[in-house]
Structures are given as structure tokens and as C-alpha cells.
């Protein structure tokens, strides 16, 4: 934060003081409620950050020469936060998976029971790990592709740290039983309101930075980041409209009811996958894959087709989660139709990525980082095919409510989202910290194989258990009665639950290896500065230090 101007420091201090007061107020009115605990946490976090801010405030005003450099400090912190959340979220995931096989692993405590740690796992990986990865890489990509520095120095910190405060409040809430039971949107009203504020700041920062671009065209990756920021805002607000029972309680009731709530929930839920876990990470893919492969993206027209196809089709597809339910038939059918059509733009992107690698296969063989990205594109293609397939009514009748869905989600989460993120991080870290390469190529290789084998074990276990359970539920004896009780089908699941926990464990170990590798990379001494000019924004040049003519 040493680069903040005095005006930005004052603004930061003012916001932190307001937050601290808000925290005290929440702690006071919500004394006998989890809201009070959250108030205390907000107070402590704000005061802690205030100390960091004050201790850096005695430094001199930042050098005007900063404008001739990209603003990478928040990216560095973002990388660390991404890895911390990755390990936390995946650890909780392995724990939750193990609880399904060995229920006593909650040690008879309320806070660690499956229903409370499961949302902590999903939010931890989706929002903690995924969200931080998206914010961090978007700061990197938008600067480099626009050849412009971030619009100011305060809002990148506000967005990054504010978002992490949201994650902290949301996830600590689940352990205390604070949830609105809406999948992927469990956080309660005050956390939701805070997220809206942070997200609007993110949007303004992103657009202001785009407006400073020195390139006439907005680069493809930025289309995806922009769609991600905009549409997530719309989804979040509509899905989370709720009435709190009072301002002193964490509890609220969503304004939507029953069948309408189910549609809003899955319109949101499916599009959280679309715009958070797909569009955002496609932004990552479209920048880091060509960069690492040192080849231009295969087809510009495919990029356009894929982008608009995804933006338009995905919004229709949520209702395929509600086949055979009380949702009106026509909505179910519309959802199915668009889900099937969605395969075209999805495969356009997956194909575009894989074809970009055509001619660079030798690099894929030698470079585990590039292989991460290739596997990500492969898994993206696989899970989007599977998704369209599972949206078909008869298939869905078998797969829904079983582990097949869980397997599908994790083929996407582990194979696509996590692998593209690790590929991007392994590209970004040496570049940001100005190192030649990662500390150990061997550890990247090890991580790749842990991640791949972990994902395969996980996904195959869930495919098997899901299809077996789905079939057992509907098996009839010759007397035309149901052949299995529910418990029979649960007993058949135990071996797969154990296999899944093992696959997840391998993936978690991989993430720990990654964190160690990044830590060691940062710790290796910086090489002698190379000649400037390679990685600098255009324009905004300080008068004192003109850049050499190009």
C-alpha cells in the first residue's frame, strides 16, 4: 500500500473507520445473534487494516514515475489469497467427502456437521479460490491487454480486500448456521449488501481501466471479464432480494417463494456456473493460453461466436435443473432446448483453445504449465458436453439427485476451473515477481499429475456411484415392486465415497505443492533488472522520465 497517494490514504482510512464503526454497531445490536459476532469480526479486520495503512502512511508521496509502470502490488496479494483459499476450500472439501463415508468425523459438533461445512467448501473454492483468482488475473490481464495502468491505486485494494471480507463473513457464517439455503448463494443479507458495494467498485474500476486503454480494440479476454462482472451483479441482486427479520438479526427470508424461487434460484445457480465459473475463466484462458504457447488464438471468428453464444444461451438453461418438478412444463422444455444448443458456443471455445495449441505440441509435452491449460480446455469441452447431455429430460431423470451431478460439477471445478487457474498462476507468478521461471519445474510437473489423477479418480467414482444409485432407485422386481430400499442404495455408495475422498486428497496435496512452489519462487533473489520497456504501459508517462522512443 506504499504507493497510495495521501488522498487515497485518507479515503482508505475514512472507509476503514466507517467500517469499524459499523462493526461495533452490529456487535452491539446483535449481541445474542451471529450478526453480533460478525460485527466484531468486521471491527477487528478494519482496525487491523487501519494499522497497516497508518504504518505505511509515513512514507513519502509516491513517485510520479509510478504511472510508467503497471500496478502489480494488489496482484501479488491476490495470488497469496487465491492459494490460501484454495488450500482451505479443498481441505474442507476432503473433510466433507470423508464425513459421508465416516459420519463421526464431525466429532459430534454442530459447527462441523456436513450441512454446515458443505457450503463452506463450495463457497471457499468458488468464491474464495475462484473469485480471488478472477479478480487477481483480471487486474493483470486488463492492464497488459489495454497497455494501461489500473485506473487508480485505491479501488484495486478496496475490491480485493472487500471481496475477501465478504468471503470471510459468508464462510464463518456457515459454521455458525447463518445461511439462506440457496445453493451458491448461502450468505445472508448483510454480506450480500456488502458484496454489491464491492462489486460495483470492481465494475467501475474495470471500466475506467478499459477507458484508459491505448489499444483501439478491447481484447477478447476482457469481453469475458466484463460479461462476468456485469452479469454476476445482475444475478446476485435478483437472487438475493430478501427481507431480514430485523436489523439486529442475521436471519432473513427471500422474497421469492416456492416454484418462482426455484426458478430464480436455478437461473442464478446455473448462471453462477456460466458467468463466474465459465466466462470469467474463459477470460483467463484467452489471455494466458496464447501467451504461454506463444501462438495467436486459432480463430477470431470462433471467439466472437463463442462469446455471444455463451452470453445469450446460458441464461435460458437454468430450468434444466428442474425437470419433472412442479415448475411448468414449458419452462423445463425451454431450458432443455437451450442447454443442448449451448454445446455449440462451448465447444467453439474449447476447440479454439485446443487448436491454438496445434503446432505447439512439443511445448505441451515439455511444459507442465501449458499442459495444465490444455487439460483445462479438454475438461471444459468434456463437462460442457456432459452438461448438455444431462439437461436432456430422460437423462436428467436418471442423473438428478445423484452423485452424477456432483461428478459433473467437479469435472468442471477440478478439471476446468482449478487447472486453468493453476496454469495461469504458473505463468503470472514469475512475470509479476520478475523471475525467470517458477522455483521448480519438477514440482509443477508433480502438481500436474496429482491434479490429473485426483480429478480422474474423483470423477470416475462419482460417475459410477451416480449411475448405480440412479438405476437402483428405479429398478423393479419381477413382481413389479421396487427392488431396493433407499438404504440399500446408500450402502452401495460407501466404496465410492471413500474413493472420492482419496481423489480429492490428491488434488489438495497438489494445491499445497503449488503454494510451496510459489512461495519459494517469490523468495528466490530477484535477478538483475533487465532493460526496461518490455512490460510497461503506454502513455501516462511522467514528464520527468520520458520513455525511449519506440
Amino acid at each position: 500500500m506504499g504507493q497510495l497517494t495521501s488522498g487515497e490514504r485518507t479515503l482508505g482510512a475514512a472507509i476503514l473507520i466507517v467500517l469499524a464503526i459499523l462493526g461495533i454497531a452490529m456487535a452491539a445490536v446483535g449481541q445474542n445473534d451471529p450478526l453480533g459476532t460478525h460485527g466484531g469480526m468486521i471491527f477487528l479486520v478494519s482496525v487491523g487494516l487501519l494499522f497497516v495503512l497508518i504504518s505505511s502512511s509515513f512514507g513519502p508521496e509516491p513517485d510520479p514515475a509510478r504511472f510508467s509502470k503497471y500496478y502489480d502490488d494488489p496482484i501479488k496479494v491476490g495470488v497469496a489469497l487465491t492459494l490460501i483459499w484454495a488450500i482451505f476450500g479443498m481441505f474442507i472439501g476432503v473433510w466433507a467427502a470423508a464425513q459421508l463415508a465416516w459420519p463421526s468425523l464431525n466429532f459430534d459438533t454442530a459447527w462441523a456437521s456436513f450441512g454446515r461445512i458443505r457450503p463452506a467448501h463450495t463457497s471457499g473454492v468458488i468464491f474464495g479460490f475462484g473469485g480471488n483468482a478472477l479478480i487477481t488475473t483480471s487486474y493483470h490481464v486488463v492492464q497488459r491487454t489495454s497497455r494501461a495502468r489500473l485506473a487508480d491505486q485505491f479501488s484495486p485494494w478496496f475490491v480485493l480486500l472487500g471481496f475477501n471480507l465478504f468471503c470471510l463473513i459468508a464462510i464463518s457464517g456457515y459454521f455458525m448456521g447463518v445461511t439462506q439455503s440457496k445453493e451458491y448463494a448461502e450468505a445472508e443479507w448483510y454480506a450480500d449488501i456488502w458484496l454489491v458495494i464491492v462489486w460495483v467498485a470492481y465494475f467501475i474500476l474495470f471500466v475506467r481501466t478499459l477507458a484508459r486503454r491505448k489499444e483501439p480494440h478491447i481484447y477478447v479476454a476482457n469481453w469475458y471479464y466484463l460479461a462476468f462482472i456485469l452479469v454476476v451483479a445482475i444475478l446476485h441482486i435478483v437472487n438475493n432480494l430478501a427481507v431480514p427479520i430485523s436489523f439486529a438479526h442475521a436471519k432473513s427470508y427471500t422474497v421469492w417463494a416456492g416454484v418462482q424461487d426455484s426458478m430464480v434460484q436455478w437461473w442464478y445457480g446455473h448462471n453462477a456456473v456460466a458467468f463466474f465459473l465459465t466466462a470469467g475463466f474463459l477470460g483467463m484462458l484467452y489471455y494466458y493460453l496464447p501467451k504461454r504457447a506463444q501462438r495467436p488464438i486459432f480463430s477470431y471468428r470462433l471467439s466472437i461466436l463463442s462469446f455471444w453464444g455463451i452470453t445469450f444461451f446460458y441464461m435460458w438453461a437454468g430450468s434444466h435443473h428442474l425437470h419433472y418438478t412442479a415448475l411448468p412444463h414449458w419452462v423445463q422444455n425451454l431450458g432443455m432446448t437451450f442447454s443442448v444448443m449451448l454445446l455449440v458456443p462451448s465447444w467453439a471455445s474449447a476447440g479454439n483453445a485446443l487448436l491454438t495449441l496445434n503446432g505447439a505440441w512439443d511445448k505441451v509435452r515439455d511444459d507442465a504449465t501449458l499442459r495444465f491449460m490444455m487439460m483445462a480446455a479438454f475438461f471444459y469441452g468434456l463437462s460442457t458436453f456432459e452438461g448438455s447431455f444431462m439437461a436432456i429430460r430422460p437423462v436428467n431423470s436418471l442423473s438428478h439427485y445423484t452423485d452424477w451431478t456432483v461428478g459433473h460439477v467437479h469435472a468442471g471445478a477440478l478439471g476446468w476451473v482449478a487447472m486453468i487457474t493453476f496454469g495461469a498462476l504458473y505463468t503470472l507468478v514469475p512475470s509479476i515477481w520478475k523471475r525467470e521461471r517458477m522455483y521448480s519445474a519438477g514440482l509443477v510437473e508433480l502438481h500436474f499429475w496429482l491434479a490429473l489423477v485426483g480429478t480422474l479418480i474423483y470423477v470416475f467414482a462419482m460417475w459410477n456411484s451416480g449411475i448405480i444409485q440412479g438405476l437402483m432407485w428405479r429398478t423393479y422386481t419381477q413382481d413389479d415392486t421396487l427392488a431396493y430400499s433407499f438404504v440399500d442404495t446408500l450402502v452401495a455408495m460407501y466404496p465410492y465415497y471413500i474413493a472420492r475422498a482419496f481423489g480429492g486428497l490428491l488434488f489438495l496435496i497438489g494445491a499445497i505443492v503449488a503454494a510451496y512452489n510459489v512461495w519459494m519462487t517469490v523468495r528466490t533473489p530477484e535477478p538483475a533488472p533487465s532493460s526496461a520497456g518490455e512490460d510497461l504501459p503506454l502513455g501516462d508517462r511522467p514528464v520527468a522520465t520520458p520513455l525511449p522512443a519506440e
Partner: protein
Amino acid sequence: MPDLMHGKLERSATGLMLAIVAAASVGGIVEIAPLFTVDDTVEQVKDMRLYTPLELAGRDVYVREGCYACHSQMIRTLRDEVERYGPYSLAVESQYDHPMLWGSKRTGPDLARIGGKYSDFWHVAHLINPRDVVPESNMPSYSWLATTPLDVRDLPLKLQAQRYVGVPYTDAMIANASSDAHGQAVPDSDQATGVSERYGEATQISAFDGVTTNVTEMDALVAYLQVLGQLTKAAYENPATSEQVPNPND
């Protein structure tokens, strides 16, 4: 030509933003807006009753513990589900559910028609240690619910908030919420009579957790479980045939 048009779009951040919002809005509007106006989205039935304060408190416990992560409350229109669980779920049955708890995963069985299927005693034993009654179960134990007193003071606020979002609780229901919660879990008490007056004679008044001296979260959760699928008889009255899905054995 398309390239030319797009070339324009990708030079303008505002244009791109507007185009994204426009493209992304259509699907949601087409699929969601009519659900509020089309008459047949939710059936009209006369006997649909409201959750009592105790049942609502139990539902909040259910929400708090994340039960929806393992139990659905939506029997689909499939033959095997109807035979296993009971008549398929109607939209009207979750008309007052904020939020709906249809769920997306069945690690345990569906609960849409669990009400009345087992005794209160069974539910309490099952929640205290699921493996005592179902040895193969992997459900967590919720024994601490039986010793946690139910906070009934918040109930008027909860009913009030439910009314804000469209559940027709009356002023009398809101004013008596705390005492009704107490009365429903303590039969033979003075407060018990008010419950059947306000919520109907069919309302179950019972010492759900077997102890009448206090009202616990166990009382609330069991009261909620016992009313699931029982708020209206509509689903039982029109036994329309369910859809046939090919039998894998055929």
C-alpha cells in the same frame, strides 16, 4: 460484414456493456416473468394451511443445519418416486416457502411426504443418533437439538417478515407467535388451545421431543418434519398418473 460490426462493438466499452446486458437479459425475462402472471403456475387450493410458529422455527433449524444439502423436498412425476415417496409434489405445496427447499441431491431420502410417516419418538431417536434406528445411515447426529432451548422471542419478528414477503399471517398470529410455539409443544397447557384456533383443528399439538417442561429446537424440527406434505391434501386428491420412464429391466 459481421466482422465489421463487431469491430465497432469491441472498440467501445459502453457498446459492449449494453450488448452484454441485452443478450444476457432475454432468457431470464422470458422464463421468469411469466411465472408470476400465468395462472396455472401455482394451483389454487382451499385447504392450504400456514406453518405454525413452531413449525416455522423448525424450518429455520432445517435451513440453518443445511439439511437441503442431502435431502430433497420434491417428489418428481416419475413412477418409481411416486411409489417410493408418495404422490408427486405440487407447486402449491411450497407456495409459502421462502426459500423453497427442493434441493438438488439425495444423499438421504426425499422428505416431501415424511410428515406422519413415523412417530415423533422415531424422529427424536433418529435425530439423536441416526444409526440407532438405521444402522447403515451416514447422517450426522443432532443430539444437541434436544438440549438447546428454542428461542421463541424472535418468532413475532419472523412471522412479520414472512408477511412482508407474502405469507398471509394475521395480526393475531403475529402477536401470539411466541405463546403459540410454546402451546404446540406443551399439550394440555393453556396456550395450546390458541394454536388450534388460529391454525386449524388438524394442527398437531404434541410433546414432540417427549418432554413437556420446555420447548427445544428438537420440538421445532420434529414439528416441522411431521407437517411436511400435510399442509394440503390436494396432492392426494388428484392421483393423476405419473410419467413412465423406461424400466432398465425391460
